[in-house]
């Protein structure tokens, strides 16, 4: 059994009458990426704030350990074990990137020469060496976020909290950030990641928990979560209304969308099921103009868990796990 980097039992927090966290249990093994997924206002940031000692949990909370230390009894020991990159950039905008890094080195009590070495190394690694002598206020959003994470890494924390690290970043910066996170984990660091992007959790996390209404609605690996919801289907689209009609007759189990001239056939996406659909179309002598296979993804899980409404199936929504076969 592996040791837990984070273990929380019955995390509770209310602000006035508003219950934000209503008994959240978390168990994050060392050296893994755990992603807390939830819509805006679900309480993700509150979880990070509590676990990183910024705000105290409410009295009804059970035992919470971070890095093996009791959160309430030994907050300084917890702080020594963690690094936090919050949702809003935690850099000193008035000073340069290099000065920010040296400030962190001083606060981690590194000897002067080692501090300089660590700062220079991280600035290099995060592609900030060129901008190191410029005030942080002149940095772009992506640069600030990289500086932010570089500052978090100065003390070589074993547990890192990243609160929505890619919110507001352009696609390239987002992929850079993912690469950074993967490298951290490869180095044995535990990462606690909050995000509202399902793809991000799918890409990075070993385990995912969906936070909804102050509780964990579901948790498991991405695969386990996807198995929780049905939603796999084959979608056929036609341009000729007559072809659409005859295909619908050939495939009695299909759901018809007359407006879009589309058919939706429940399917697990296996080759055998796909072939049977194609065989029936051939037999009826119709040809679909477009065929897509949709496997359930975290979007389906997310919507199924956080909303009782239907899973999304908007044709215009680009979807990573939908592959077009023409």
């Amino acid at each position, binding site marked *: 059994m592996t040791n837990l980097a984070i273990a929380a039992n019955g995390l509770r927090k209310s602000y006035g009458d508003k219950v934000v966290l209503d008994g959240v249990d978390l168990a994050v093994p060392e050296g893994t990426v755990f992603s807390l997924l939830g819509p805006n206002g679900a309480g993700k940031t509150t979880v990070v704030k509590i676990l990183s000692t910024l705000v105290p949990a409410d009295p009804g909370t059970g035992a919470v350990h971070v890095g093996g230390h009791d959160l309430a009894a030994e907050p300084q020991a917890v702080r020594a074990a963690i690094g936090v990159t919050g949702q809003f950039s935690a850099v*000193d905008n008035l000073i340069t990137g290099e000065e920010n890094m040296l400030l962190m080195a001083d606060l981690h009590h590194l000897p002067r020469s080692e501090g300089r070495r660590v700062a220079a190394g991280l600035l290099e690694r995060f592609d900030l060496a060129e901008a190191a002598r410029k005030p942080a206020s002149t940095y772009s959003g992506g640069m600030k976020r990289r500086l932010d994470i570089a500052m978090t890494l100065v003390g070589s924390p074993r547990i890192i909290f990243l609160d929505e690290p890619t919110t507001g970043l352009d696609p390239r910066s987002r992929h850079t950030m993912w690469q950074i996170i993967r490298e951290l984990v490869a180095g044995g660091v535990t990462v606690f990641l909050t995000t509202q992007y399902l793809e991000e959790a799918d890409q990075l996390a070993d385990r995912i928990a969906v936070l909804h209404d102050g509780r964990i609605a579901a948790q498991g690996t991405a695969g386990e979560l996807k198995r929780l919801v049905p939603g796999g289907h084959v979608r056929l689209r036609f341009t000729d209304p007559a072809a659409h009609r005859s295909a619908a007759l050939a495939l009695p189990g299909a759901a018809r969308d007359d407006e879009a001239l589309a058919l939706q056939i429940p399917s697990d996406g296996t080759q055998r099921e796909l072939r049977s659909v194609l065989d029936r179309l051939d037999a009826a002598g119709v040809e679909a103009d477009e065929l897509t296979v949709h496997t359930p993804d975290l979007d389906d899980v997310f919507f199924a868990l956080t909303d009782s409404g239907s899973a999304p199936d908007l044709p215009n929504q680009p979807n990573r796990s939908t592959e077009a076969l023409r």
Partner: protein
Amino acid sequence: MSSLSLAVRDSSTMLRRNLLHARRYPSLTLNLLLTPVMLLLLFVYVFGNAMSGGAGRAAYIAYVVPGILLLTVGSTVVGTAVSVSTDMAEGIIARFRTMAIHRPSVLVGHVVGSVLQSVAGVVLVGAVAVAIGFRSVGATAPEWLAAFGLVVLFALALTWIAVGMGLVSPNAEAASNNAMPLILLPLISSAFVPLHSMPGWFQPVARYQPFTPVIETLRGLLLGTPVGSNGWIALAWCLGLSVLGYRWSASTFDRDAR
């Protein structure tokens, strides 16, 4: 590392950070020095003859300079309140709170930096005063030293109060407003006119506030006027305000992150 050496080390790191800010953005500091210098010139050259009751401009320079020097401290700490309030809104403060550092060091850095700025400001304004004719007649070396110590102590007291004001202010404008009394109080003290020249009902207002005893003590140390009980009262004000301001600031800072 012992907790004391941790406190000293982290505080000096934070002080370096604040001095870096002050050096990088000197305009705020210099703007704050404009007020005391303008008041000095205004009261000496424009109102000087009238204010001195016929004793002449030279005599009035001697009278008004100690008050102006302490008004410089008041003016500097308004800047402290503003910069503390601005700083607290920065994300880096949240980062500091999640680090295993000596917590009050964030505030101590601001305080020590601000006291240094106050002292530098007093020296600069003092130089202007000397340039227009102020002379400290007959002050001995220990009196000079005591005068310097008094300025430092008073700056420390006002700074801690200003830090508290900065911490409870939601933004820079509010901080500037909240700290306004620190620059208004010297105007209703014995800085510009002696207490006995004020209307009787007003005299207690001017007498029982921190600026008057500190000004009277500084005046006595620099010019040889009688200090009387003002010395002890000034010391008590300084220590009292420092302790109060520290307690207030530390407990405000320790409360939940904003």
